[in-house]
């Protein structure tokens, strides 16, 4: 039963094919181009006339008294969910709405362009589209009101003409839909100049979409350059007076998406910026003998590096040089003013952020924080700790963060350090300056606490933290500080002291014994028995000849030996024959001699007898 039921159950249906990136990009471009054409159309003021020619819906209550309604008031009712329902008035009055709703829908396809994990996409989509939809709804409200007003004054033809003109103006100031990639930083600047942040974002997004690498061959190179220009632009925004930090905050988003598209080009641009900065510093050290902290733009660049690239890598082509550069900032740059303190603390913060995941040890960071604490201490008896460059125990800047005014201490509230202070210290009162000093100190104490929790597991943690601990316990005038600061101080000290002291004697890893060299026999596969393997044709021929020669040689030897044997045998038989012949003759001779002797003896005996 169940099996049969299963058989009847709905099978998974094939879903629609997902559109590929190229197709999406193409569609997007087409759409934008169409919109751009429409916009141009409207800019020239053509559409309204056309619309007017269309037959209008006539009300049953029409008095037909020659009174012409040039605005149909019913579209007030046709709003649904904050959007205009489709109608012929849409184009008439809804310029703004249209463009905004378009932008809303743009949010998603762009983000799909980047090859990111799904999680990111969620994050990515909500930020810009939220923004735009917010803006969109706001504008709709104003448009709404506009139309109400229009409704009131719909008797006035003259006024409606004015409205029309205003609309043309609005369309002119509206953003174009297609952009070419700017070829220099100046062009990018002129493109973005005077726009509000949201518009700049839209422009950048459209540049990216219209020039997607899959659409044309040269687009990749162009967009790669765009990253560099954008980076430069951000640097300039950071150096103007006052720094446009809010704008930078938003511009980081397109920078991120560009970086995701072209990692190599992006890394090269950032590396170039770093190299420039390090070179400048080296030059300054050579000329002046000492370096000063860089401007705000460099600090922003370092922060951007942390946003674009993973800082926890053991080695990273961009992040590692950034590390070395920041180390130089903390060891070579003189701390002369309060701005320098802020910059230094910013770099410390960067350092901590860079290593927040990897938990790597940064000696410079500890040294610098120690130095910052040192310049907040009134009495200069450097006992129990030693300062290193760039801080010195004496000198004119050795009490930079010292606050003596008790009143100021009491009125202080912890506040975040505004970055604009880096470019210029506002002409502020003494109280504000003192408050500012205390804020710096608060940041420093908090960073110390963070360091302590980060490095707690290091084997010589207590040796590393010893100077800071001595300063915190013995030299810092805690009792005079406001409550909030005292708390921070307590927290930091506790974090340091809470760590257990464990010292395990070091033991080398056991060396793996070097394996004996084994001589395994070399095995050659014999594929055909009886036949010599391998070799080229000549080799084989040679071997064959050698073999033949050997065989012939053996045969010849055998022949010779046989001949010799035969000869020897023949000679022997000849000799034997001759020997037996001789023996026979000798015997015969003996015989005849014996008979002769016998005869001679018989004759002799006969003689005697006789």
């Amino acid at each position, binding site marked *: 039963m169940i099996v049969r039921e299963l058989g009847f159950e709905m099978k998974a249906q094939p879903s629609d094919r997902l559109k590929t990136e190229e197709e999406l990009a193409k569609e997007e471009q087409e759409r934008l181009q169409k919109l751009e054409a429409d916009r141009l159309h409207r800019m020239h003021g053509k559409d309204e006339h056309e619309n007017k020619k269309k037959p209008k819906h006539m009300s049953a209550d029409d008095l037909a008294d020659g009174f012409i309604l040039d605005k149909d008031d019913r579209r007030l009712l046709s709003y649904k969910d904050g959007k205009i329902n489709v109608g012929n008035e849409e184009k008439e009055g809804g310029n703004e709405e249209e463009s905004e709703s378009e932008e809303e829908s743009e949010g998603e396809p762009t983000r799909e362009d980047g090859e990111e994990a799904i999680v990111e996409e969620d994050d990515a989509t909500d930020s810009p589209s939220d923004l735009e939809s917010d803006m969109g709804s706001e504008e709709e409200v104003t448009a709404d009101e506009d139309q109400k007003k229009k409704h009131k004054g719909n008797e006035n033809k003259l006024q409606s003409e004015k409205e029309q003109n205003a609309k043309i103006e609005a369309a002119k100031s509206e953003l174009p839909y297609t952009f070419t990639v700017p070829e220099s930083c100046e062009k990018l600047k002129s493109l973005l100049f005077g726009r509000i942040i949201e518009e700049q974002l839209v422009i950048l997004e459209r540049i990216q979409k219209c020039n997607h690498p899959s659409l044309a061959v040269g687009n990749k190179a162009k967009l790669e350059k765009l990253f560099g220009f954008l980076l430069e632009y951000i640097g300039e925004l950071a150096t103007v007076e006052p720094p446009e930090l809010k704008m930078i905050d938003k511009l980081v988003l397109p920078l991120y998406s560009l970086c995701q598209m072209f990692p190599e080009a992006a890394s090269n641009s950032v590396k170039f910026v770093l190299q420039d900065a390090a070179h400048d510093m080296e030059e300054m050290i050579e000329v002046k003998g000492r370096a000063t902290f860089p401007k705000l733009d460099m600090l922003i660049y370092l922060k951007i590096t942390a946003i674009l690239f993973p800082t926890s890598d053991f080695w990273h082509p961009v992040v590692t040089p950034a590390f070395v550069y920041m180390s130089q900032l903390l060891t070579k740059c003189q701390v002369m003013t309060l701005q320098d303190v802020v910059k230094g603390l910013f770099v410390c913060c960067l350092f901590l952020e860079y290593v927040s995941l990897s938990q790597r040890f940064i000696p410079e960071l500890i040294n610098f924080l120690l130095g910052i604490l040192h310049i907040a201490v009134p009495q200069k008896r450097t006992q129990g700790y030693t300062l290193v460059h760039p801080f010195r125990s004496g000198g004119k800047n050795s009490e930079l963060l010292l606050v003596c005014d008790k009143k100021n201490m009491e009125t202080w509230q912890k506040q975040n350090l505004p970055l604009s202070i880096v470019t210029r210290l506002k002409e502020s009162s003494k109280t504000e300056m003192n408050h500012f000093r205390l804020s710096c100190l608060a940041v420093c104490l908090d960073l110390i606490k963070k360091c302590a929790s980060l490095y707690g597991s290091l084997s010589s943690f207590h040796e590393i933290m010893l100077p800071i601990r001595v300063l915190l316990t013995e030299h810092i005038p805690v009792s005079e500080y406001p409550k909030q600061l005292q708390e921070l101080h307590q927290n930091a000290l506790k974090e340091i002291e809470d760590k257990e002291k464990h010292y395990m004697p070091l033991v*080398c890893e056991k060396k793996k014994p070097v394996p004996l060299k084994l001589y395994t026999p070399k095995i050659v596969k014999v594929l055909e028995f009886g036949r010599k393997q391998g070799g080229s044709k000549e080799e084989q021929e040679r071997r064959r000849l050698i073999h033949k020669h050997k065989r012939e040689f053996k045969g010849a030897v055998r022949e010779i030996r046989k001949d010799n044997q035969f000869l020897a045998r023949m000679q022997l038989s000849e000799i034997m024959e001759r020997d037996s012949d001789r023996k026979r003759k000798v015997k015969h001779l003996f015989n005849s001699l014996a008979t002769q002797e016998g005869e001679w003896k018989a004759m002799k005996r006969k003689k005697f007898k006789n």
Partner: protein
Amino acid sequence: MRHRYNSCVNCLVELMSHESFQVKELSLLTLMKFVELEGKYPLVKAEWKGSFIFPCEFLKLVVENLIPCEEDSSLLISRFQEYLEYDDVRYFVMKAVTENIGQVMQKTKEVLLPIYQQNVFSLISSISMPSKENEVVHFMVKQANQEEWKVLKLKEHKRAFERMWLGFLKHKLPTSLYKKVLVILHDSILPHLNEPTLMIDFLTVAYDIGGAISLLALNGLFVLIHQHNLEYPDFYKKLYSLLDPSIYHVKYRARFFHLADLFLSSSHLPAYLVAAFIKRLARLALTAPPQALLMVIPFICNLFRRHPACKVLVHRPDGPEDLSEDPYIMDEEEPSESRALESSLWELKALQSHYHPDVAQAAAVVNQSLSELEDDISELLELSAYELFDREIKKKATTVPLEFEHMKGLFGKKNDLFVEHFALE
């Protein structure tokens, strides 16, 4: 006539303290021309034949005005340098300077005269001594019978040189001048002295001052110990006390570690001493920048190779399980009391998680047993931070990993530290 000549000379001498450099320069040149001519055509007839004529008093007057007490005259001195090429002028200038220092210093009674001393230094440091006897041939005033003249002997030159420097260094010097003297000491002063060991007083004083000056004095001391058999009591103890966090940060780092390498290369040093050095260097390395770490870690490894008895610092298989304190006493000045041999090199263990990949790798060497061959640290000695940066940035990467965590703005990462402390205003 002679009267007129004298008053002319006096005028010129006064003009040497004129404000304008051109005037000074011209008067100096004229005076030197007078010196030359006076040498050739002496005002006073030689009293007996075979005596040597040189206008010493005249030259002394010039020298006196060349090193004024009030203003810096280094420009004028560099102009004067061309005359110091003449062997006879040099000889008499050295004598005059010696005399002048004696007079001026006696007057002021051991008070520092930075400008005067600076002037003297720039004058006498520009004296370049001949190195061989037969090089003494270059004279401003030719003498008739040259053989017996004192100026001809290199030994006399050396004696004058020695007297001058000793006279100069006898007195207290400003810190910057100390450094300058020590930098050139082993190269351009010590080889030209008859008895270099006379410098020991000066060097000892300098060595005891501490800081960078001590580091620099080390070089001179080394030359004396090495080439002139000087015995220096407690030398290693002093060297040990020189180690403080600044050694990794000062300009003279390369020079110091080069010498330290030489001093610690002897295989006759006791293990406790070497262990104390190792431990102290490692402890201080906890505050060192990466370029110094890249140098000092192989340095420590080399010490292990030379003194295998110290290897307990990295390998103690049968030690106590867990200690609550590092037995090594950092504040102890006597290396033998520091209990370094009971400790372990936990510092290197900590450096294994250093942020710089090369440092972390170098520190990881102690995990394995060391190879027999010593590392060559001569190239690492001069490694600067910028070189390190350059090396990193020129490394080619095949792929560039990207951050996958998305952010919402400049400070918009998850758990961003900056949000707590900084504001985008």
